[in-house]
C-alpha cells in the first residue's frame, strides 16, 4: 500500500445528501485509515450544522474520472443534438403548456 509507506492516512471524498429528495453532492475530502473512520470523520467534519441526512465516502483512488482532454469527445457531440431539448419544437400557444 502506497499510503502506509508514507504513513499518511488515505484520502476520501465526501458526498452529502442535504435532505431527502436531493442528490448527494460532493462537499470536500478528508483523511481516514478505513471506511468506518472516514464515515464518522465525515459526520464530525462536514455535518457540524446538521447539513446532511445521508453521507457517502469513497476512497479518492477509487474514483474514475474523465480527463479534461476528453471534454471535446465526451460532451461536444451532444451540443448539436438540440432535438433533445423541449424548446426545439414549435407548439402553437393555443395548445397551452406542454
Amino acid at each position, binding site marked *: 500500500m502506497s499510503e502506509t509507506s508514507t504513513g499518511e*492516512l488515505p484520502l476520501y471524498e465526501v458526498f452529502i445528501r442535504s435532505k431527502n429528495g436531493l442528490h448527494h453532492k460532493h462537499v470536500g475530502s*478528508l*483523511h*481516514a*485509515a478505513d471506511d*468506518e*473512520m472516514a464515515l*464518522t*470523520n465525515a*459526520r*464530525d*467534519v462536514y455535518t*457540524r450544522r446538521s447539513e446532511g441526512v445521508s453521507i457517502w465516502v469513497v476512497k479518492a483512488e477509487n474514483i474514475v474520472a474523465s480527463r479534461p482532454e476528453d471534454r471535446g469527445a465526451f460532451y461536444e457531440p451532444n451540443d448539436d443534438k438540440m432535438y433533445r431539448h423541449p424548446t426545439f419544437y414549435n407548439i402553437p400557444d393555443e395548445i397551452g403548456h406542454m
Partner: protein
Amino acid sequence: MSVSVAEMTEQDQLFEYTVRLGDNCVILGQRLAEWCGKSPVLEEELALMNVGLDLLGQARMLLDYAGKVEGAGRDEDKLAFFRDAQAWRNLLLVEQPNGDFAKTMSRQLFFDCFQFLQYQKLSNSADTKLAEIATKSLKEITYHVRHSSDWVIRLGDGTEESHQRMQKAVDELWGYTPEMFDMDAVDEAMLKSGVGVDLKEIEPAWKKMVEGVLSEATLNFPELTWQVRGSKEGKHTEHLGYLLAEMQFLPRAYPDANW
C-alpha cells in the same frame, strides 16, 4: 453538604441527584477542552470537540435545572464557577488527567458506556425534566459510545506500541470504575420515587459492553487489584483542584462582573 440524608427534603435530594449528573458533564467537557490544538489527527480534533460540545450542552441543561430545583438563585454558572472541590459530585473517573490519546479514549469508553446505560433508564424517569434531558442526550451519547469503542479497538488491535499504551490506559483507570455503581441514600431515595436509576442493575450490562469492546481490541479485561471511591461525599483526587483553579479563575477574580 452538612445535612445528613435523613434530614434532606425531597427537593434537596433531587438537587443533589441532578448536580451529580451535571458535574460529570462539566468536568469531562473541561478535560476534552484541554485537547484543543493537540489532537493526533485534524479530523479527530473536530470529533473530540463535538463530544466536548455535547457534554457542555448536557452540563448546562442539568445545572440550570439543578439551580431551579434548589430555588436559591444559583444558575448554571454560579454552580459551575463558585463551588470548591468538596462540593463537586463528579465521578473520580472523569476528573483524571487526559494522559495520552489512549488514556483519554479509555476514560471516554468507560464513561460513555456508563452514561449510555444510565440515561437509557433515566429517559423513563418520573421527573419529566430529567427524562427529557436524558432522551435528548441519549442520541449524542450513542454516537460517543461508537466513537470511543472504535478508537479503543483500533488502538488495541493496531501496532505493538498502541496495544501496550491502550492496555496500560485501561489498567490505570480500572480502579476508578467500581465507584460509578455505588448506591448511596440519595440514589436509593431517588430510585424509590421513580426518578433515579438503579446503578447496581446496570453494572452487569456495563461490564458486558466494555468486555465486548476490550475483547475485540485484543485487550485483557483488567483484574480489580485496587479501587477508590467517595465522589458522592465530595472526596476527590488532587487533580480536581487544579482543574477547578483554571476553570473558575476569571469569575472568582471578578465576582461582580457579567461575561
